[in-house]
């Protein structure tokens, strides 16, 4: 896997990102945690954090000691110290919290039972004011009010109430403790509303800090992810460029991908995937594990509900992946079928128009369109269905949590605030996974991109001798010799090609299209295609010559002109011209480029405003501008007029004095001008010789000539 290698270099960044994700999860989950606290303490305990009162009036202590057994009383009041004036008792710093809470809760519950006993029959309208009624019932005020009745109970009876309180439901004790604590403060003349507001604002501030910290984490992880994906994309492009820069036609054929589109689109897709994976796929499990752990502290049973939900959501997404992705592939296929259909339709327009089959074609087009429509709608519907199911499930978990928590509320110490917190945890845990849905829909494209990228990268770079290869000496004969060369293609090939092209001569190659001449002469540029027989340059075997040396020696004018969106001069420089004015001018003249006034003229969009012939001439100028010993001019003149052809031939004639010129052409004027004509048929060389010789000896050549209006006398 290529990606591993590239991501490996960023281990630290990924690690850092994961750590930050943990923090991000902690902060984002702490908001609901404090929310729960705010409801439990802020509203129910009136902002008093410990359910054990920190301050008690002396008369409250008296009352208190009446309803708890002596030994408990001893323990409880050992946590308090009397103030100087003896009017109030203050909670000591070092009190045992759990003991104090236990006794306090029991006392409040016992008080509740006692008052219930006393007020039996005197119950006011319970339905109307339940909460207030209950709170009133155990409030100090009520206890003060009934202090006479309280004294009427015997010690045994009081102990009975206390024992009953000890075995009372946890929830009841918990609630009673929370509800009553504020009365001790009221009693001591402390403003509870102020404490409450303070608590609410304090917790609110903590929550704001958590939010800010969470956002900082988001910012940092986002930045790291952006940097990572940008740098990995950059690295991929670099390596890709280094790998493909020496691709010849052979490698291009083997990997069978458009090198540019992989460079641009597919690598971008890979970058996008990295981004998605880092931001959604990595974070989701972290935050949902956090959410489940936190909900576990509230209720182990309910946390299992969340866990189950997460599992179900993952399963739904997996099913979506299994169902929608193949269909998505299908859609892509049908879509390319549609594109192909349109393309073919344009290519066959003459057939279709003359056979008047437009209607039939339209029907076929609708068929293909219908297929695309069906797939499109299937994929869309699958996604919508999955999203609805996910939302259904998350709603289900909310409902289930609330309903199931009812029982837990009674049997454990869960406060109503905990339920709120819990709901938020489950929402956060589940929604993190829904973000992955987007990644899933991107997966098929990414898969294709990965495939293409690795196809190109696993295509071996051509092995050609360079540093250890032979160097051609500078001033040699510039001779190219083909000896029994053969090429094989899928449907046919050429064999037994033997001829020599040398300095001082223009060698014309008259070959039908598609016989493989471009591949044949491409060998001289070091294309690395395999061939039979032997090729020699200055008596050196082609395979042994270093690639740099070969390229210095050979200049090749391609039959399909390629121009760069730069000035004419810069184009020539890229074709290998010496950087001086003379060389550029000379080459432009040689190729008869008479339509360019200024060599700095910009060729916009690769010169697409020029005609084919004009572009061909600039590209020819490029090839001629390079100082080389062997020039191969591949069919550059197919669309120039007769006069231009003559001019160019003249320059080639001059050029041939110092170099070997191979001119691939079928035009009769070029053939007449050439010193030697090699006539190819589909299988190899048909005949060779001068124009006059060939007219006499070759029927094939005569036909070629006569087609171009040359008066050819029949064979003698």
């Amino acid at each position: 896997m290529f990606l591993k290698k590239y991501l490996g270099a960023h281990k630290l960044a990924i690690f850092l990102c994961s750590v930050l994700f943990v923090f991000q999860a902690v902060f984002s989950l702490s908001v609901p945690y404090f929310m729960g606290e705010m409801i439990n303490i802020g509203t129910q305990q009136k902002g008093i954090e410990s359910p054990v009162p920190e301050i008690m009036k002396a008369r409250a202590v008296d009352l208190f000691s009446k309803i708890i057994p002596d030994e408990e009383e001893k323990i409880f009041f050992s946590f308090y110290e009397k103030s100087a004036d003896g009017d109030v008792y203050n909670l000591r710093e070092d009190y045992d919290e759990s003991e104090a809470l236990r006794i306090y809760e029991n006392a409040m519950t016992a008080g509740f039972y006692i008052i219930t006993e006393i007020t039996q029959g005197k119950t006011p309208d319970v339905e109307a004011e339940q909460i207030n009624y209950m709170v009133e019932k155990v409030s100090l005020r009520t206890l003060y009010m009934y202090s006479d009745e309280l004294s009427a109970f015997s010690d045994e009876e009081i102990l009975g109430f206390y024992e009953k309180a000890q075995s009372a439901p946890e929830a009841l004790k918990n609630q009673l403790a929370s509800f009553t604590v504020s009365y001790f403060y009221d009693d001591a003349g402390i403003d509870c509303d102020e404490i409450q507001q303070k608590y609410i604002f304090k917790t609110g501030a903590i929550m704001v800090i958590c939010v800010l910290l969470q956002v900082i984490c988001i910012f940092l992880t986002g930045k790291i992810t952006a940097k990572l994906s940008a740098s990995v994309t950059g690295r991929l492009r670099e390596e890709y460029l280094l790998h493909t820069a020496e691709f010849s036609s052979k490698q291009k054929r083997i990997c069978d991908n458009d090198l540019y589109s992989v460079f641009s689109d597919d690598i971008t897709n890979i970058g996008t995937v990295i981004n998605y994976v880092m931001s959604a796929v990595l974070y989701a499990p972290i935050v949902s594990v956090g959410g489940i752990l936190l909900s576990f502290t509230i209720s182990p049973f309910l946390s299992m509900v969340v866990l189950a939900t997460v599992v179900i959501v993952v399963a739904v997404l997996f099913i979506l992946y299994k169902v929608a992705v193949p269909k998505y592939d299908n859609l892509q296929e049908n879509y390319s079928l549609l594109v192909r259909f349109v393309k073919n339709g344009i290519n066959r327009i003459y057939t279709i128009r003359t056979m008047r089959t437009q209607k039939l074609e339209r029907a076929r087009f609708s068929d293909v369109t219908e297929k695309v429509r069906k797939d499109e709608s299937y994929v869309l519907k699958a996604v919508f269905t999955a999203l609805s199911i996910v939302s259904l499930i998350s709603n289900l978990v909310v409902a289930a949590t609330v309903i199931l928590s009812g029982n837990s509320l009674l049997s454990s110490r869960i406060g109503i605030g905990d339920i709120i917190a819990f709901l938020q945890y489950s929402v956060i845990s589940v929604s993190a996974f829904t973000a992955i849905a987007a990644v899933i829909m991107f997966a098929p494209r990414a898969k294709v991109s990965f495939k293409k990228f690795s196809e190109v990268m696993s295509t071996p770079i051509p092995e050609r001798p360079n540093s250890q290869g032979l160097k051609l000496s500078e001033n040699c004969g510039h001779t190219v010799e083909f000896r029994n060369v053969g090429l094989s293609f899928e449907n046919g090939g050429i064999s037994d090609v033997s001829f020599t092209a040398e300095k001082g001569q223009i060698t014309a190659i008259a070959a039908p299209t598609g016989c493989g001449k471009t591949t044949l002469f491409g060998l001289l540029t070091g294309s690395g295609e395999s061939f039979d027989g032997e090729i020699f340059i200055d008596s050196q075997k082609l395979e042994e010559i270093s690639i740099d040396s070969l390229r210095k020696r050979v200049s090749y004018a391609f039959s399909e002109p390629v121009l760069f969106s730069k000035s004419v001069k810069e184009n020539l420089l890229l074709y290998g011209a010496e950087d001086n004015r003379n060389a550029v001018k000379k080459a432009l003249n040689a190729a008869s480029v008479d339509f360019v006034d200024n060599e700095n003229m910009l060729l916009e969009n690769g010169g697409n405003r020029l005609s084919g012939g004009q572009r061909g001439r600039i590209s020819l100028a490029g090839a001629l501008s390079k100082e080389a010993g062997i020039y191969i001019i591949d069919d550059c003149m197919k669309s120039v007029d007769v006069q231009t052809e003559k001019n160019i031939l003249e320059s080639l004639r001059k050029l041939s004095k110092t170099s070997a010129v191979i001119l691939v052409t079928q035009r009769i004027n070029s053939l007449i001008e050439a010193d030697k004509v090699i006539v190819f048929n589909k299988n190899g060389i048909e005949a060779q010789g001068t124009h006059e010789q060939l007219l006499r000896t070759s029927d094939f050549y005569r036909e070629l000539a006569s087609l171009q209006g040359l008066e050819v006398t029949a064979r003698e």
Partner: protein
Amino acid sequence: MSDEKSGVFKFRFDSGSKTVEDRANKKEIQKRLLKSLSAYKVKLILFAVVTLLYSVTFVIFPQKIGDIIDAFASSIIQYLLGLGDGSVFSEIIPYAIPAVAFFVANAVFALLQGYIVSDIITSYSANLRKAVMEKYDTLAVSFIDSTDHGKIISAMTQDVDALNQSLNLLLMRFVAPVITFAVIIITQLITNVTVGIISIVFCILGFSFTLLSERREKKAATKQQSDKGGLYSEAAEFYNGLAVLQNSGKVEERKQSLLEKIKDTSKASEKSQKFSVLQNCISELSVSLCIVFAMVASALMMADGGFSVGGLQCQFVYIRKLFSSSTDFSMIPGILRTAILSAGRIYDFLDIDSSETDGDLVPEKADSPNNIEFRDVTFRYNKESRYILKNVSFGVKRKGITVISGMTGAGKTTIIKLLLGFYQPQQGKVLFEGKDVSSLKKDDYFSKFNIIVQGSTLFDDTIENNISYGCENVSFEEIQRAAKLSGADEFITRRQDGYKTVFNSKSPNLSDGEIQLVLLARAFLRKREILVFDEATSGLDVIAEKKIIEALQEIAKESCVIVISHRTSSLSNSCDTINVSDSKVKM
């Protein structure tokens, strides 16, 4: 998937930029777009209704959950007071059933919403494609020849696709969220004014910050786009001209410059992503702070006994949904841009003013021995190009083979294009039965022809259907007889699937010669006065060529056969030859 927005669509039918006109044009396009959508009025209304129902059920569900939570509070107290029996279930069932009903309904509406949208957009795009295809069928061949095929293909495929996706996004990310947004805000204001106002304030804050950062991002994004554009165009040139650069030894130099550009682009893309990170932060910040503020406000209210815990939970759900729908709004301008751009290109295509002319029926056979005549024809494709034909005159006999020969590019195919009336000569006339071909009714005129043109290939269909292409109600026997006459039967029956062999244009499973034989079989099946046969490439072996010549000679016994050949094959000995060279013809 922001990469979709860029890069793919580069075409415009009328070149040249025009900003002032563009704006008017944009309005025009919007109008047409809306008009085209009005055909889906019923479905769109249905969509709005379902979305409304979705929003309403969405809003009610958390209220029901809130009721349950509040019911707990009271049921617990009842239980503690010894009034209830401790069974919370019995207490909440009356609340739970509607809650479940509402969220199931909510999910159903969500699903329905999605289905309606996918129905609207898929049928919209299918219809649009059909309209484009119909337009394409009326376009003059000369126009199609001279227009970049990429533009046409793109109008028929990519642009429709892009418009399609934008519509999907507009409905799902704009129309639906706006409705949901409104319903939630209204509900919030009704149930709890304070929290409602808090969420409105935070929504506005979040949205304006998003807009602010987006404005900055746009700058960065355009820079990144241009950096990327620079990298991409340079890379495109690099790979396009790789062979040239390798030959000139300039690969290294270009490679270095590209590597430099890659680094720049990486930096730029990192920077532009930073802004989207910032946006993420803003949206998270506003939703979380909104929740915190709502919490604090509610806690203070609860202290005064004015608010229940269940109601609070309900508000949290609203706030989350509110923000998740409002962040989507920032994508709208981009989506609209894409929609208008691609719609504009499609409308440009639909508005092309170039259609085939039609005329009279072909007259009765004239007295002349020739049915086709070129009279002093001069032709070039456009003012810039050279003359292909200059004062060319010739006739073609009613029966027998006429060979048109000449070098590649000499103008042989042009003669056929003129003969078929797809192009008109600048001078002179092309006559059929004494009438100018451009004045003939195409259906009638073309019914005289069988044409196998250069580059003809088969359709991706069975061989059988390829032979019977364009003919209705032909029996298999007739097809087979035609194939036998053309000599195609032999290789067809050798294939495993015989006549049911499916041709694959992507990786051709028939050789060029075999394709031509099948095409000839088509000509045998449809008997016509004239057969035009463009020999296309020289990709035929000697045996195949001989077979085809025999087949042509067979057809020529009954009708006129025009063969285009770029070399004088053995045919030329026995028939009329028209040699095209240097804009002249020689008989």
